[in-house]
């Protein structure tokens, strides 16, 4: 029996947000997407505690605090650090990849050019986390 996943998407690009919504709406399962335009907004949402997500999808290149900075803050928080965080980014910079895994991530996914490839990746990602036992 799959869970209803609550996904926190931290992403500043409107079309990227639209893309995730469109993929999710085409899927048969129920997903709740919580949007945050940047790290601060995401932290505000997480601090309220009424909408703690099951997983976080995090973009790296963002204004104000960057994805990596956000990740560090998250992983220092004793209760929030357990939320699986998956990086969703364009950057295949070896340095970023290494840094993210060092801090602690549950996955690192490159945004593909083609929408159909994107659909395929997101479907797999959501399917995977749907069958996981989560805290």
């Amino acid at each position: 029996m799959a869970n209803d996943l609550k996904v926190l998407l931290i992403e500043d690009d409107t079309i990227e947000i639209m893309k995730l919504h469109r993929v999710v709406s085409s899927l048969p399962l129920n997903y709740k997407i919580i949007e945050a335009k940047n790290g601060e907004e995401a932290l505000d949402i997480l601090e309220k505690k009424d909408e703690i997500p099951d997983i976080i999808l995090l973009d790296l290149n963002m204004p104000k605090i960057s994805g990596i900075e956000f990740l560090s803050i998250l992983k220092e928080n004793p209760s929030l650090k357990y939320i699986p965080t998956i990086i969703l980014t364009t950057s295949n910079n070896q340095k970023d990849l290494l840094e993210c895994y060092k801090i602690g991530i549950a996955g690192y996914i490159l945004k593909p050019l083609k929408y159909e490839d994107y659909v395929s990746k997101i479907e797999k990602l959501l399917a995977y986390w749907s069958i996981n036992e989560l805290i």
Partner: protein
Amino acid sequence: MSQIQIDILQRALNREKAARKQSEKILEDKSLQLFNATQELKEANEKLELLLEEKTSQLQGVFENINDAYLIMDLEGNALKMNDAAIELFGYDLKTERFNVVNLIYKPDANYAFKSFKELRKKGFFTDYTARIITKSKAVKWVQINASLIYDKSKQAIAAQGIIRDITETRRTSELIKEQKIELEKSNDELQEYAHIVSHDLKSPLRSINALVSWIKEDNSGKLDAASLQNFELIETTLEKMEQLISGILLYSSIGSESVKKEKTNLNMLLEDVKQILFIPEHISIKILNELPVVYGDKVKLQQLFQNLISNAIKFNDKEKGLIEIDVQEEKSFYQFSIKDNGIGIDKKYHDKIFKIFHSLNKTKESTGIGLSIVKKIVDLFKGEIWIESEPNIGTTFYFTLKK
């Protein structure tokens, strides 16, 4: 006196006379020998004197003409003799004043100076002493000194001599180069970061356009005419092309600035990997003519190098049976590789241009014009050279060398 006694005396006298003559003869011979020996000695002495004079004037010449400062001092450090270069460097002139080399010691280097002087006394020499001195005009200069003791006939040290090279300028230059190198490395790293950010920023809109195009197609499924569908396809192809270009530029800019990971790389194994990665059509065969060497270098870059050249050879092959031959020749300090194809060939007028970035001769979907410039950059990194021999329609051979 009896006749017998007279005879005895007579004989004794004769013997004495004969003995006298004999001794005179021996003495004469000895005198002649002595004379000849003296004569020889005199000649030998004259030759020695000439030689000595020659050596002295040679030494004098060296003393006056060497560009480095030369100084002789007694064991208490009092300067005894110095050449013009030394006068110019130190500012002291023995013709008008006396000075002790202690005056030259720059205080922060004093310990080192005294330690080195002790070493000179103990070992009889020191080499490449590098420290600062302070001249008469209070200027601080960097010098390098090689010194040795001078001994008298009984092997007693009586003085010391040293050649002092002014390395102030050299040091300044090398420090400047060091600074510039650090700066360059920093700006290279920044550039690298910048390339990543730019490529991200450039790729994002492409992705968005692609998503939007597919949504329009999806949402208007069945409503679009053939021409519109074809135009949408063209948009998608253009986007792909654009993305490849951006990736290529990023790759090009990252070569050489990333920290180089050097490891022993077996090229035979590396080429097997390359063959796995590349799509090799059935009509093309790749032959490796000789056992390839094990080289020392960044494996990823070596793979890029071979992969780019081989994929070019595949891409630009128009023959029914395509043949790619890879060969190597070992030279003293480098390996010379060749990758030969029987493809479309390259006209001579383009031979110089092909390694320059964005100079793709065949702008197709697969070709961005960056591949060969990446190849060139990698070969440069290995301090090697790359060149081609090619004839249109017959084929192309790429030659490159990798330093051992």
